[in-house]
């Protein structure tokens, strides 16, 4: 059986290019330009899906992107619009929601249970007994609607794109094209977004005059350089301050969907109208089509959707549909409809329409019923933009007003008229929008006079057919809305949530007005009194993969990265930085530091250069400790708190001269600390002599550490005496290192050994690194990674802010009471810290030791409750035991041993090391 008809003047199929695809395992052939649905209809297949809840057979309803009926899975990508998707060779198309097939669906048993499957059915039925919930869930999942996502089928995410056009035009019908041309000719850059594969809108499936106009508009558009045209694209959302989300491409084989974003100067909404279905018994049966769907199938795809048709002629579109059907060779019964009378009372048939009854009692045998109630204004974008949208009892359409500036309407959404009226109006709108977008560049053009409102004359049938489907996505019938009202869900927003009407993938484009009308009739209210639900993005479905896009993160590499990479470093990410975790043997690397000498790349350490007469005042405000007394050439450990007295950042600060300090911060805290300094500078010291710059990237930093480090460095260093008395612990010097000028040399380190930290201009970093390694050869120098440093710092009892502290840790818990400044004026955290100064802290950081490993985050328990936790833990190659830090309640911290609860449930008795430090508590090695 073929429903394909001879050549149509506007057809988009290419009869010279047959395309084979599979439909539920069956081989089917269509033509290039066919949609999945038109190709199936052409072969006589009329049941394309099963409905969401009752598994009723479904065919084509609106025959476009919005068609709620024919959602299909293609090559494992579910829920695609089968009436929109173009055929591609080799597509594997499967129907959804039916088992074993759409023709014989055992789940249709749901239809027999119709009277039980009322709104709230699942909540009402499957609540008790609670223990059975998992079982219910398992069984119900098998009945859930929608296709199955096959994960590997997802095409790779496309790069996102930003658009910077003056004017974005949503909708490429005659009005959208006319507005684009006018805006571009006025001097604006224009982005025209059309959701079908070609621009032209309703002209494409129109008559001879429409096709002439279409050709004219397309030619003009092709000749206009100022318009970028995107097809198969949708403006799916308008967000704050005019931010637009646009989906582009995708939905087909292999091609990923792309996200475009931008904030154009003006938005023209020209998305046309959506035909509104009528409510009658059997309005979802295959063979009940909207007039536009008929016109599209006949004129674009040369498919005759039925051979014996009943067409309710209530407006130009339905009259034209009847003419198109006759031209396609169908037998057509035209029913003249005036003010909604007569209407369809019922359509009946076992699997598809077989007979039609009208409200005036007439009955016809037919396999095609073409009827609509009117038109819906798709108000989503204007509503998202902040416009007021109200349904009018007079017009039965949405009226839009109070649009924000720079959002304008064109075409059917703006009112009623002929195509000529729309084109003239839209051209004026386009010029006006161009001026709105760029008033300093483009001459003023007034907004055109409003178009008269479009009016529909349909009436709800009385009595209301309870099983007429209102929402085709969600399979919600009119009677279910009444049940929701009966149960007390008396606002349209509640009816929506209880019944899920308008919540499906078409977002109420077909159902919202009918749902409001049903609620209004049942409650004896006007449409205005019922009000509307809220429109939210997206306008049409978008894929999550598109929103996510390819995930890209900036990576920062230190100046020494290439060396690490060539020498077997295992990297890890610390914020944006890549750092060597180890060179394969962290314990051995740590041992080398304790026994001889090692070197680590610490370039990621934050460095901030602060200068000016008021530099020490700034530091006093920023840190809890005092800085005025710090002599030139000395360094001091500093701690920053927040207003609540919580430790947020730490690091060593060196005073290079009277008015210059170099601050070091944690690797991840550098940006945050710099912002903090800028705020204090601007807020508290606005008139001061103060300059702060983040200089982390300017230096390659390396720490040479271990008992032999001084010996190693002596031959490399000029302009600085390394002897202990000349350059003691916690001092800083400028120096020439391995022939490189402008270096800083610090006597600081994180390992507890004799340490020298070198800050070398970044470009010379690798040279100095090589010089150190070759000078260190005779001492058996080992480069070490962060893991070895972690071992060394836990052995030494150095805490890390954020790991060994939490959001309640004050300096007092860390044993830093002496650092909290007295008599230095205001500083961040002063009030809390002064309040707490003489009070015993509730917790304290201590060291723990044990034979076997105590994992980080293990709880410390006492009398059956938690009294703290292990915060850092390493096996110590020096002590050959596990060394840990733990934040414990004070009473537990005072004991000599505590109980640690291990992950397997067993307990370990750990020794408490008072004063935190496991190795060299006197600090003699570091001072050496």
């Amino acid at each position, binding site marked *: 059986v073929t429903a394909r008809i001879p050549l149509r003047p506007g057809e988009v199929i290419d009869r010279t290019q047959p395309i084979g695809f599979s439909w539920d395992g069956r081989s089917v052939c269509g033509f290039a330009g066919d949609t999945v649905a038109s190709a199936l209809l052409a072969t006589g297949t009329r049941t394309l899906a099963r409905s969401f809840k009752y598994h009723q057979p479904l065919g084509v309803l609106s025959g476009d992107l919005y068609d709620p009926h024919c959602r299909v899975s293609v090559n494992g990508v579910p829920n695609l619009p089968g009436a929109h998707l173009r055929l591609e060779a080799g597509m594997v198309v499967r129907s959804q929601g039916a088992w074993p097939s759409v023709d014989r669906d055992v789940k249709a048993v749901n239809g027999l249970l119709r009277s039980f499957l009322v709104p709230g059915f699942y909540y009402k039925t499957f609540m008790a007994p609670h223990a059975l919930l998992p079982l219910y869930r398992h069984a119900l999942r098998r009945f859930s609607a929608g296709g199955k996502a096959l994960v590997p089928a997802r095409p790779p995410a496309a790069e996102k794109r930003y658009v910077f056009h003056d004017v974005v035009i949503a909708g490429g019908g005659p009005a959208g094209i006319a507005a684009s041309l006018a805006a571009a000719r006025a001097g604006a850059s224009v982005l025209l977004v059309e959701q079908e594969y070609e621009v032209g809108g309703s002209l494409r499936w129109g008559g001879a005059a429409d096709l002439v106009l279409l050709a004219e508009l397309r030619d003009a558009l092709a000749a206009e350089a100022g318009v970028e045209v995107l097809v198969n694209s949708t403006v799916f959302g308008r967000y704050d*301050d005019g931010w637009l989300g646009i989906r582009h491409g995708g939905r087909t084989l292999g091609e990923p969907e792309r996200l475009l974003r931008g904030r154009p100067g003006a938005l023209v909404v020209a998305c046309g109208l959506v035909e509104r279905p009528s409510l009658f018994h059997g309005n979802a049966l295959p063979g009940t089509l909207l007039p536009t769907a008929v016109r599209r199938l006949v004129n674009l795809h040369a498919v005759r959707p039925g051979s014996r048709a009943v067409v309710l002629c209530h407006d130009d579109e339905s009259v034209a549909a009847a003419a198109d059907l006759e031209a396609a060779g169908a037998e057509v019964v035209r029913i003249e409809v005036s003010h909604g009378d007569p209407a369809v009372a019922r359509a009946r048939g076992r699997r598809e329409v077989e007979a039609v009854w009208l409200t005036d009692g007439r009955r016809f045998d037919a396999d095609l019923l073409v009827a609509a109630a009117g038109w819906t204004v798709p108000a989503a974008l204007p509503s998202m933009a902040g416009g007021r949208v109200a349904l009018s009892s007079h017009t039965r359409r949405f009226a839009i007003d109070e649009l924000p500036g720079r959002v304008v309407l064109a075409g059917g959404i703006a009112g009623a008229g002929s195509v000529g009226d729309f084109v003239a109006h839209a051209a004026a709108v386009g010029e006006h929008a161009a001026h709105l977008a760029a008033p300093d560049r483009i001459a003023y053009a007034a907004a055109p006079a409003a178009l008269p409102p479009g009016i529909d004359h349909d009436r709800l049938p009385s009595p209301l057919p309870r099983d007429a489907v209102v929402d085709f996505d969600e399979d919600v019938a009119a009677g279910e809305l009444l049940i929701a009202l009966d149960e007390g869900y008396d606002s349209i927003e509640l009816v929506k949530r209880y019944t899920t009407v308008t919540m499906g993938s078409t977002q109420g484009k077909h159902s919202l007005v009918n749902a409001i009308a049903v609620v209004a009739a049942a409650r004896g209210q006007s449409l205005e009194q019922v009000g509307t639900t809220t429109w939210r993005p997206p306008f049409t479905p978008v894929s999550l993969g598109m929103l996510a896009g390819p995930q890209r993160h900036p990576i920062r590499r230190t100046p020494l990265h290439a060396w690490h990479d060539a020498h077997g470093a295992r990297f890890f990410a610390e914020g944006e930085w890549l750092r060597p975790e180890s060179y394969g043997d962290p314990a051995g690397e740590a041992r080398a530091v304790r026994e001889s000498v090692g070197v680590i790349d610490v370039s990621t350490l934050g460095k901030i250069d602060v200068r000016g007469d008021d530099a020490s005042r700034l530091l006093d405000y920023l840190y809890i400790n005092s800085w005025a007394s710090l002599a030139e050439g000395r360094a001091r450990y500093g701690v920053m708190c927040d*207003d609540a007295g919580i430790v947020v950042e730490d690091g060593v600060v060196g005073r290079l001269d009277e008015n210059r300090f170099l601050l070091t911060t944690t690797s991840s805290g550098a940006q945050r600390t710099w912002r903090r300094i800028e705020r204090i500078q601007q807020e508290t010291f606005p008139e001061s002599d103060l300059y702060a710059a983040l200089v982390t990237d300017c230096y390659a930093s390396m720490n040479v550490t271990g008992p032999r480090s001084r010996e190693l460095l002596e031959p490399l260093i000029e302009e600085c005496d390394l002897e202990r008395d000349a350059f003691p612990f916690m001092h800083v010097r400028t120096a020439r290192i391995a022939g490189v000028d402008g270096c800083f040399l610090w006597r600081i380190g994180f390992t507890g050994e004799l340490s020298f930290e070198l800050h070398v201009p970044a470009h010379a970093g690798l040279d100095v690194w090589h010089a150190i390694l070759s000078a260190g050869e005779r001492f058996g120098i080992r480069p070490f990674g962060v893991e070895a440093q972690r071992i060394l710092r836990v052995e030494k009892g150095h805490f890390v802010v954020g790991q060994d502290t939490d959001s309640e840790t004050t300096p007092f818990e860390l044993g830093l009471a002496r650092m909290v400044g007295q008599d230095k004026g205001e500083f961040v955290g002063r*009030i809390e810290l002064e309040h707490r100064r003489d009070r015993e802290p509730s917790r304290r950081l201590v060291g723990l030791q044990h034979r076997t490993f105590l994992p980080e985050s293990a709880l410390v328990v006492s009398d059956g409750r938690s009294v703290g936790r292990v915060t850092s833990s390493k096996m110590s190659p020096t002590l050959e035991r596990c060394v840990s830090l733990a934040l414990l309640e004070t009473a537990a911290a005072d004991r000599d041993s505590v109980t640690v609860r291990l992950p397997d449930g067993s307990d370990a008795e750990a020794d408490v090391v008072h004063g935190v430090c496991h190795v060299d508590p006197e600090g003699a090695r570091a001072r050496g």
Partner: protein
Amino acid sequence: LISVPCPLCGSSPSTDFVYVDEAEALDGESSTIDEWRRSLHFRANPFGPTHELWQHASGCRQVLVLTRDRVTNAIVASRLLRGRGGGW
């Protein structure tokens, strides 16, 4: 993604800025500990305009005082924090 006006740079997407805090200046000098804690942790969260600090981190790096309406999300005023003085 709202558009944030900067007195120096003009409007930019909010991703160019870092939200800092509410802008109500905390009075460190005269507070008791209880008043201080209340002002830190109990925020007014008004239904309407509120003053907030944002830093133009990917721009001029100035800290701004924005007056943002929490109901409409409209930013009705934007000025430099510079020189406000007072506490952190």
